[in-house]
């Protein structure tokens, strides 16, 4: 059973503004009977001000489709057409305290009915640019059509790219088989063959392991050598900082913690955290071990006293 919010249930059990409005001068019919939900929105608009005086809905659909329709009519009443058009499908979902990912399309249908009704009122022709496909990624509610369009538009060829562009597959990852199947078809259509990534940990982790493996093992360094090495790295970075009117000074090394003092322009600079991050990255690369760079201001008191 769906995890509907109390607000969704309330709007489903006791829908507001059900039925068509008398003297309606704007009608929007949207939806798809094959998919099992369709909605007719009727509005009564005050011609001078374009304020929506009344709104009514007739919906063929599930609980959340009816609740979304009810919510929509409540939201638009009293607004001008332009104000009403600013309502997004997320606004409708928020009004209902959220919808399950499989049901977000119900809120999309609500927004489209509104667009269609406004177009109808203004004598315009509204064409739907929204095509809906089977839901692939349930974590982020991304459907088949969206994934295919994104693959085509950006020439994507890996699951990771699809995740980066659409978010699909970025959550629990159970839909990766589905995404791979889509990739296989789309790549075949453009004359390529889908090559799955290597089995194993995520690429990010693999890279991390590789960068770790390259430098000299830290165990070979004595304490003095290690501190000298840190000093050396910092010395190498100083010219760049000095060019910006700042500087860095090594205060202490304690295990993986490296305490530094940022001076001059660096001290108190908005970018200090980024500078420290850069220093830390450089130290990690050079020493081949994890190093944490800590500004002296955050140094524990008992150490600061030494």
């Amino acid at each position, binding site marked *: *059973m769906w995890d509907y919010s109390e607000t969704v249930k309330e709007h*489903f*059990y006791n*829908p507001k503004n*059900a*039925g068509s409005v008398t003297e309606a001068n704007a009608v929007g*019919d*949207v*939806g*798809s*009977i*094959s*998919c*099992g*939900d*369709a*909605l*007719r929105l009727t509005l009564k608009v005050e011609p001078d001000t374009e304020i929506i005086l009344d709104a009514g*809905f*007739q*919906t*063929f*659909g*599930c*609980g*959340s*489709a*009816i609740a979304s329709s009810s919510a929509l009519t409540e939201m638009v009443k009293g607004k001008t057409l332009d104000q009403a058009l600013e309502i997004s499908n997320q606004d409708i979902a928020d009004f209902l305290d959220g919808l399950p990912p*499989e*049901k977000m399309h119900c809120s999309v249908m609500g927004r*489209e009915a509104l667009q*269609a009704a406004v177009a109808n009122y203004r004598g315009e022709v*509204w*064409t*739907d640019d*929204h*095509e*809906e*496909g*089977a*839901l692939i990624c349930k974590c982020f509610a991304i459907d088949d059509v969206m994934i295919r369009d994104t693959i085509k538009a950006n020439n994507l060829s890996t699951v990771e790219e699809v995740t980066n562009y659409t978010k699909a597959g970025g959550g629990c990852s159970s839909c990766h088989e589905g995404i791979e199947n889509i990739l296989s078809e789309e790549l075949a259509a453009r004359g390529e063959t889908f090559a799955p990534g290597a089995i194993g940990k995520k690429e990010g982790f693999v890279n991390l392991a590789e960068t770790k493996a390259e430098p000299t093992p830290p165990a070979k360094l004595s304490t003095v050598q290690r501190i000298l090495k840190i000093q050396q790295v910092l010395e190498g970075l100083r010219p760049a900082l000095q060019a910006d009117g700042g500087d860095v000074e090594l205060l202490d090394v304690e295990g993986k913690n490296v305490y530094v003092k940022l001076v001059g322009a660096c001290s108190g600079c908005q970018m200090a955290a980024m500078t420290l991050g850069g220093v830390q990255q450089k130290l990690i690369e050079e020493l081949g071990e994890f190093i944490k760079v800590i500004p002296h201001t955050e140094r524990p008191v008992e150490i600061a006293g030494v």
Partner: protein
Amino acid sequence: MADIYLDNNATTMCDPEVVDAVMPYFSEQFGNPSSMHSFGNKVGFALKAARKSVQNILGAEHDSEIIFTSCGSESDSTAILSALKAQPERKEIITTVVEHPAVLNLCDYLATEGYTVHKLAVDDKGRLDLEEYKKLLTDQVAIVSVMWANNETGTIFPVLEMAELADAAGVLFHTDAVQAVGKIPMNLQDTCIHMLSLSGHKLHAPKGVGVLYLRRGVRFRPLLRGGHQERGRRAGTENTVGIVGLGKACDLAMEHMEYENTEVAKLRDRLQAGILAAVPHSFVTGDPSNRLPNTLNIAFEYIEGEAILLLMNKAGIAASSGSACTSGSLEPSHVMKAMGIPYTAAHGTVRFSLSRYNTPEEIERVIEAVPPIVAKLRKLSPYWDENGPVENPEQAFAPVYA
């Protein structure tokens, strides 16, 4: 008032006698049936008894033809994949368009692996065309997999005849009988069925136990290899609790077989008559003259099934629907589509599936509760006008995107 459960094709309540029978196997009877000592030995005997009970309800010739599995889906997968493994030169599968996803999705996957899958079509009452079937039975076919009875409509397929045709053509025949076992008397030893799947929780046994019936002598390749359990045909330590429960449930189903086919069928017929009389523009889907005694599937036109279920649930009545929304898919039930039920009705199908626990009082309550629910939703529907559907509904309301 207690809620009314009319969703027994989805799952059933574990019979209290089954619960009593399995309790010791959670506690003192914890042994591994494979063990040499008395802890295991006693459990081993219990499995033997359960196997006999399953043999009895299926009318199998030998108890060694019973392989315990984890569920109906595992039995289906085992049967089909075994047939393909055992006959690598045969690359075709025959099934139907209305099978359970346990078979259909596996077949669709196998199609991507290079197998040819023939899906037999059905007519508007969900019936198969046996002439089409006969033409497809060639030496290229590895296995035929056809359900004994459809889970959504209850429509019964002529599996005995189809198995004979397959057998005569030298083709393996498997039937997914999870909805049929316990409701339809069967005697497999007199049939040509080579393999059959059943699922415990559809007949008042616990979830997590199923059976693959494998006729003696049928070539077989296990899905799970490993230990020697089930004579090496299904490795893995036995689900002793589930198996003991299934044995008891089979004994009870045998006792109630007549009741199921008389009393339960009567309740179902009363429910059908009561609802159809009170709700205009509703009709029964499937083949009412040839269906499971407990199943009733009604299409309520111009409204959507999930909305019906939610309102029924609020009224304390549990059933299920073939609408797209209840499954989270974009299409209504593949079974309704296959029968050519129009979208305005297919999304509004509701399946009532009864059991021996339902009472005449419950049925009367449902007959009273359903009509106002349908009326309430029709009032909201763009296809409905005051007292009936709008004229030319599909044209009067033709929304923008298709």
